[in-house]
């Protein structure tokens, strides 16, 4: 149980900081209306103009997001492999090669099917 104490303390500290910051901002900050405050903050697409038909957006975004996730996951697996590369040795190299080869097939498929073209 003792080994969990640091992580519990850290969790409590970060929770406390978050609650304190939001509460303090609410209590002490001035409230003045400004249209810019309603905009998307730093990231994301502008929500206007709304697309016709109630907000369907092109499947292209989904494709890009999917591709991002695939390569993101690849890195997730590559990273621990790189850390314990010498322990895993030849076995790790072969298995990772097979893994990356499989992803390469997916990549070739997406490329040939036009998944990388925006229009």
């Amino acid at each position, binding site marked *: 149980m003792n080994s969990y104490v640091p992580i519990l303390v850290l969790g409590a500290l970060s929770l406390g900081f978050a609650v304190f910051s939001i509460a303090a901002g609410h209590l002490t900050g001035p409230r003045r209306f400004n249209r810019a405050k309603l905009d998307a903050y730093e990231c994301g697409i502008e929500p206007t103009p709304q697309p016709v038909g109630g907000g369907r957006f092109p*499947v292209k975004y989904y494709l890009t997001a999917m591709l991002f996730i695939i390569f993101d996951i690849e890195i997730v697996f590559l990273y621990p492999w790189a850390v*314990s590369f010498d322990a895993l040795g030849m076995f790790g190299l072969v*298995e990772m090669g097979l893994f990356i080869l*499989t992803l390469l097939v997916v990549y070739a498929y997406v*490329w*040939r*099917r036009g998944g990388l073209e925006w229009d």
Partner: protein
Amino acid sequence: MNTGLTLAAEFETPSVEYRLLAPMLIVFGVAVAGVLLEAFMPRPFRHETQLGLAVAGLLAAFASVVMLAGDYSVAASGSVAVDGPALFLQGAILLMAIPGVLATAERKVDVGGVFAPAGSSTPGSPAERLLVAEKITQTEVFPLLMFAIGGMLLFPASNDLLTMFVALEVLSLPLYLLCGLARRRRLLSQEASLKYFLLGAYSSAFFLYGVALLYGYAGTVRLSGIAEAVSSEAGNETLLLTGTALLTVGLLFKVGAAPFHSWTPDVYQGAPTPITGFMAACTKVAAFGALLRVLYVGVGGLAWEWEPVIWGIAILTMGVGSVLALTQTDIKRMLAYSSIAHAGFILTGLVGTDAVGADGELLGVSSVLFYLVTYGFSTIGAFAVVTLVRDAAGEATHLSQWAGLARRSPVIAVVFTFFLAAFAGIPLTSGFTAKFAVFSAAWAGDARVLVIIGVIMSAVAAFFYFRVIVLMFFSAPAPDGPSVVVPSPLTTVAIAIGAAVTLLLGVFPTYVLELAGLASQFVR
């Protein structure tokens, strides 16, 4: 206390026994090759090549299953079990997948195939009409099917719960997609796909939570490790019981047992019919294999706790399946409820845990293995017949449209009657020997009340099968009723394989029964 240093010292390089995993590797290899073909092969050659590659891959994988027979051990650092039940079910799945793939490849009954040319096109849109007019065939279904089959091969063979979860997802995700690809009635098909996906994801969450709790109990996800912890009565029993319950819920969902059956009729009705047949047969085989392994290997020492629950679920499943099938007016929904009832009969066999046969085989396991084979082949055949009865709008699935079918096509009516007789468990069909096997296993396992209820339920179930037979043979056909299309050799072969196995296992069941008996021991 484990520190990073001691972990590094204990580090053991994992190993993969490629030979023992050959059946799965072949199927996954074919699937990946199929993806490459989709990318680089010109469209006109794709369909034949993909079909040939898929069937060749299934046959090669089956050959490697046969070569592994009798050579039982664990592979991939203990996360995959290569033992009797695993190899038997892998062989069964591969053999059932062949008629399944053949029926899926049919292009004559509905010009261009049963699948939408592009899954992403909006139903009824000009883009879709253009694709249909160009008679473009969807060939991506072959790699998807092979990925699903690969997951199904791993599911009953997985020896730890994480591998089992990965297999569950690998088999489910392609199926969700395939369900939504019907060329006709696309909205119904997409609805089926969405429902299957949402409820499947929901059940995966149950499964995963069960895995987490069992890990909390035993400190390992390995089934043998959990079994050890159960027998030494170490750890928190609440975690064990809750974890087992959640895990079993996840598996019973895939099996389609009541009260986790509600997705079955909608999905079976909406999915393209060859996919429904494939799914009803192969998914059930794989899921029962996993259920057997979890209940017998993982928490076998807990049989006193789970047996009464499986009792109750078996009775409920047989009851819900048989009674609700009576009220159905759609042939696909009726077959879906029939598959629920069959899940109940199979669960009956599973309860016979301490039933041991003359040669020391576990009757509970061997009867379930045998039942799965008989049920699977009849199911694929029956759904392939459903694809042939058509009118202008596509398949005529309303029961009233099947009235007097024997006058339009006596052959198809007789074949379908044969499959229904097998489902009902009439002697000289495989359904009879299979029901006999599970009921005698449950009887030997002292579940006598359950057997009596099972026999009564199979009489109720027989009633709705005979209702369809009477409808086909003794009702006057409607003037604008559907016609029976003559299929290409693909569907014909699929139906013939289904009918031949149903007949063979009804008349000469000995060989396969003995094989199932030999294959009834798990490695731990």
